[in-house]
């Protein structure tokens, strides 16, 4: 038992160093003024974490945007806080606590919505702020405020090896899940009633997707933090939606934007010595603005130009 754990651990260690080495060969192709920043081990860990987080956030954001779950994503990301605090208190892995409170909150939202006259937006606002407040209270009693700040806003430069491992495993699970359940997820997002009629269990798909969201949020905790992760769960998908009419292409663009924003944001945060989470989100927003203006079909600039040409 212990032996097999050790084997798994050393195997994933090797995998992570392999991935970092692969990333570094790409980075070293860049001008030395850029690649210089990535020569330290902590920067390399930060880089790999950012790439993974950018990729899975980008992937999930397609579903969040198309399913109109932006507010739900926001709710879950806040609801994760007390779980993280309790897990910290009990010495559990962050993910376990985060998943429990995240899932409880989303079930609570559903229950209020179904059984009372309160509408879904109020139910979400109510549940996630309460959950978040509980988290703030617990943490204020337990840990220093810097620790709280790191959870809220991320601290990618301080990512420890264990956190990178967690992000790595979470990413693999998320990618595998989306691949294996690609069709049910797509059908559920597009037309849940059709999914029902075809005999898919939409309850399972629904909560599976929430589980995936929670997983992604926890994996992103150290990089962009609880508050800003929701930006990474909306912006890449929304940007990709402006650029294509194919779901697979949308996934691809969204993942690319997620990765690019994470890496560029990380680099900028080091060069200008600003908060990494904020920098990453601002870069993603920059991509969105570019797409909004210059997208071939939806872009405002081309629309104006076409209108002028017509008139």
């Amino acid at each position, binding site marked *: 038992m212990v032996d097999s754990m050790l084997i798994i651990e050393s195997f994933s260690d090797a995998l992570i160093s392999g991935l970092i080495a692969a990333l570094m060969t790409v980075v070293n192709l860049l001008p030395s003024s850029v690649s210089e920043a990535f020569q330290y081990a902590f920067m390399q860990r930060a880089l790999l974490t950012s790439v993974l987080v950018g990729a899975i956030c980008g992937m999930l954001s397609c579903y969040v945007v198309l399913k109109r779950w932006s507010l739900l994503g926001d709710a879950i990301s806040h609801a994760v806080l007390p779980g993280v605090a309790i897990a910290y208190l009990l010495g559990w892995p962050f993910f376990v606590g985060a998943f429990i409170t995240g899932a409880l909150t989303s079930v609570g939202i559903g229950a209020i919505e179904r059984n009372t006259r309160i509408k879904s937006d109020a139910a979400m606002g109510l549940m996630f702020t309460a959950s978040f407040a509980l988290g703030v209270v617990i943490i204020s009693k337990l840990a220093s405020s810097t620790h709280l700040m790191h959870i809220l806003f991320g601290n990618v430069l301080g990512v420890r090896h264990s956190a990178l491992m967690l992000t790595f495993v979470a990413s693999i699970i998320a990618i595998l899940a989306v691949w294996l359940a690609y069709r049910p997820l797509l059908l559920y997002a*597009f037309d849940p009633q059709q999914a*029902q009629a*075809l*005999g898919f269990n939409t309850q399972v798909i629904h909560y599976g997707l929430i589980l995936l969201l929670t997983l992604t949020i926890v994996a992103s905790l150290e990089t962009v933090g609880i508050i800003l992760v929701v930006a990474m769960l909306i912006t890449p998908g929304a940007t990709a939606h402006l650029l294509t*009419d194919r*779901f697979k292409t949308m996934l691809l663009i969204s993942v690319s934007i997620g990765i690019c924003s994470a890496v560029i944001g990380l680099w900028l945060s080091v060069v200008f010595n600003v908060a990494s989470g904020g920098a990453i989100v601002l870069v993603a927003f920059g991509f969105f603005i570019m797409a909004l203006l210059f997208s071939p079909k939806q872009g405002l600039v081309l629309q104006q130009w076409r209108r002028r040409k017509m008139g």
Partner: protein
Amino acid sequence: MNTDMSHPVAAIEVQGLYAAYQRQIVLENIHLTFPAGKWTAIVGPNGAGKSTLFHVLTGSMKALQGSVNAFGEPIVKHRRAGQIAYMAQREAIEWDFPVSVWDTVMGGRYGHMRDDVLWRRLLPARWHHARHTEAVEKALIAVDMLVHAERPIGALSGGQKKRVLLARALAQQASILLLDEPLAGVDPPSEKLILAVLRREREAGKTVIMVTHDMPGARRYVDHVVLINRFVRGTGTPEDMLSETKLAELAVSSIEQTTTDRQTVPAASFSPEQG
């Protein structure tokens, strides 16, 4: 008790069904038999519960009470076997969704893909078993949309959108077709095409059940009519059910219903006589 009875098989049999939205009863004590291999029209005023009935049949809404069987077995079994095809109203679909016509119609095959071996299921749909591609192609040809296969669904006209939804239902090659207002808001050529497709399906032995407001069309084509307004208000041939007097009664029933609203007449007195 079930399938091997000698009289005409019921494709769908609804017994003692009650359904509600929030806490408002929409369908009350519904007993209905949809004969197999026949084309049935469900007629009723707006808000009469026709779409709700379909929601219950497709499983997206739970009934408060009552049972629904298909071919003598619980309908859920036939849903899982991909034997219930459903065509939604145009408004129920997110047309901005980034999928092509082809991908949308392929959606009708997703139920059957569960029967494929695992490694195939992990591949893109195009590399799947040829029977899926063939079914999609056939369905697109039937509704005359094959040339538009690669277009995004958002770029289609109203009639084309309806035809794509119909093609998705056809691609499923199910034994029962549930169609929610397949003719609402379509251009005359599309309407003609849709009616011809449905007639062919019925001739091929499929059970076709559609909600419609198109009385002339229903009079001309369907075999069986169900009048619904919260209760079943009548079942029978198009000649009997779609007569001026019957339709006038149905219209009056909807006015009555809004005036008396919740204090309704005992449900039992409305249960239709089923043969």
